[in-house]
């Protein structure tokens, strides 16, 4: 474990990414302490520039504090990113395992089914699902999860296929262990590294999809999110650049941080990369 951490942190990508990610996570966790008032509170003077009237990042058209929105928005982005990735992992890993381990007809059927999803553009399907199910935080998580699982399923299937032909798996089967036990206790633990890396990337993609949905007005109207803030500030960008720039920077930072962490994880989990 310490070996792993050392490799991870020795990469500049890992160190920088993790620092940024910790910052964003801290923002999300401590949001109610940093800005105890609701980010929807219309207490400031509308169109205040950054730094004016005690508002670090300025105010929006209704006098809402952009900084409070950015800090509270971190919670929504991170919750949606993680929850929808878990949804995608649940679907993708399950299907991938079944396909990879069972092989034959089952494998063929699942792969075809996955391909159907892969041919539909992600974002279009997400819009459709959210519009049909009416936008709320639950339906957004579900929709993003439903459009994000196919790459995970394919990767899992490939990993499981290659691992399940190894001797230790055959040994476990010869001992009479049940299929479930073989898969969960022997195959998956040895196939999981690339899935973790792809999972991290999926979190970043999910945050972007959520931002795009909110930008289009398909976000949960009861939660302040970065995409919503950009969407609301978009029309006044000529008068007030700060309304869209700061939440935009927040999205950029978070997505870069997660991608860097993913990259470093990939290196750290890859046994072929020298640890010298």
């Amino acid at each position, binding site marked *: 474990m310490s070996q792993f951490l050392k490799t991870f942190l020795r990469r500049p990508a890992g160190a920088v990414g993790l620092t940024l990610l910790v910052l964003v996570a801290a923002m999300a966790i401590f949001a109610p302490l940093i800005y105890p008032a*609701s980010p*929807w*509170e*219309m207490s400031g003077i*509308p169109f205040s520039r950054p730094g004016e009237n005690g508002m670090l990042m300025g105010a929006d*058209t*209704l*006098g809402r504090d952009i900084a409070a929105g950015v800090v509270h928005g971190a919670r929504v982005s991170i919750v949606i990113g993680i929850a929808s990735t878990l949804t995608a992992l649940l679907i993708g890993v399950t299907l991938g395992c079944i396909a990879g381990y069972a092989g034959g007809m089952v494998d063929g059927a699942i792969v075809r089914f996955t391909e159907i999803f892969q041919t539909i553009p992600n974002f279009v399907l997400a819009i459709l699902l959210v*519009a049909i199910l*009416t*936008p*709320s935080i639950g339906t957004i998580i579900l929709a993003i999860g439903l459009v994000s699982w196919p790459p995970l399923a394919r990767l899992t299937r490939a990993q499981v296929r290659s691992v399940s032909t190894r001797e230790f798996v055959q040994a476990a089967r010869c001992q009479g262990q049940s299929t479930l036990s073989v898969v969960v206790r022997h195959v998956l633990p040895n196939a999981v590294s690339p899935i973790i890396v792809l999972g991290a990337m999926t979190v970043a993609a999910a945050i972007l999809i959520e931002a795009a949905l909110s930008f289009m*007005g*398909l976000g*949960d*109207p*009861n939660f302040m999110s970065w995409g919503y803030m950009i969407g*609301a500030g978009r*029309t*006044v960008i*000529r*008068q007030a650049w700060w309304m869209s720039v700061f939440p935009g920077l927040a999205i950029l930072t978070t997505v870069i941080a997660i991608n860097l962490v993913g990259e470093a994880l990939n290196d750290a989990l890859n046994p072929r990369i020298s640890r010298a």
Partner: protein
Amino acid sequence: MKRRDFNTLLLSGLAAGASGVPNLWHDGMAYAQTEGGGLTALLTPEPPMLVLPLNQQQPTIVAGSKIYEGLLNFDFDLNPIPQLAESWEISDDGLTYTFHLQQAARWHDGTPFTADDVVFSCQVMLMELHPRARGNFERCESITALDAHTVQFVLKEPFAPFLKAFEAGSAPISPKHIYEGTDYANNPANDHPIGTGPFMFKEWVRGSHIHLVANPDYYVDGQPGLTEIFFRIVPDAASRSVALESGEAQLSSWNDVEMFDVDRLASLPHLAKTSQGYEFFSPLLWYEPNLRREPFNDLRFRKAMMHLLDKSFIVERIMFNQAKAATGPLCSTTPFYEGDVPDYAKDAEAAAALLDDMGLAPDADGIRARISFLVVPAGEMWTRLAEYFRQAMAAGGIEVTLVSTDMAGWGQAVSNWDFDMTNNLLYQNADPALGVARSYISSNIRQGVLFTNTEGYENPEVDRLFAEAAVALDPAERQRLYSEVQKILVAELPVLWVAEQQYPTLYDNRLTDVIVTGTGVNGNFATARYA
């Protein structure tokens, strides 16, 4: 040198330099204003058609009203003024309306305009196609042509605002010789609309522009003052602002310009702004509770909500001053407005007292009641109104959950009474009997129909007052009845009125006499000209 001259010079110079054929570029510059005075106006969104009798959406009326006309138009105080009717008489019993028509008016194909066209339009064509016109002309016992240029309408019972039914958008007169006995919706003439108006249809390039040219045979001497009108369709609001700013377009109306951008554009040296010209429509914005549900059926709760709302915040910060705080069910620009009504000032303590009185005590989280709010999916302003409502109610311990939907979903939910609260905005159509009564009288509680009494308000006294005022002929008597009904409504708050929307019209300040009537840009622009 004027800017337009300068542009012309610059363009000819460029063209001459580039090609040596100066006129080549002039022909290609479809949007540049010609020397005689053409107008490029913005139009949002693109209308589905220009045939006014078939379609009465806002952009259809803006463009179509230059082609089609009504018998009457209305000044800023909503008094009738001549259009296709030169003069008119009303009998003392208020039942017989006689119109004398313009003798010189002709259809754009050269056929003379006669009383038969009016009878056909009001008795046959509009009865089938135009819901609002149907409501008005159903009241007629008979519609007859007394001679070629005289029409008589006889009502079954008096209806005070009957003259208002003859405005161009409410009753566009159509050519009998083209439409009689045909399938109106599929008549080939729909692609090349023929009216009596000061401008004739020339060309429509879908997605780009509609081109109208001056009618040389218009029945008023010296009109129209413009040689042509281009309606440019620009889907993006920021691009529309730029078009006005650069002088590429010379007129915007209704929602063409985003509210927060209006003051900036109005301050430019070449643009002028007016909020006149919407008196006939007078849109009123309100928060609408569903009175069939708890706790909205309790007057104390509605009063508490009203005390928690700050109308000036809505007017200043959400509508960017393109509005005025409303006091009750009538806009101050609508006839028979009554200003002497109870005022619900922003007062959190009064709200708390009312909620306490209802027994709605704060729970452990400080919340007294939980309600949901259906956000109107029609753009920024509506989203901001919903967000403001949630914050304003939170101050009084009412937790509001916003519900998003699409336009069809909103219409479905509101018309089938499946909502807690929402916003609504209705035009008053120049008379309380035409545009106000429909929201409060119990006979208009019609499931499945939008813009009816969707909140579900019932009060026999209000029903009686509206009914009597609609048939009363003496204006003083109508005022007395409407004042009384306004006082009752403001005391009972069937809905929470917040603002009279005041749409801005921005236009090039070299233009004069553009907005000359209470129907503004929905008028025919016959008088508009360059100074």
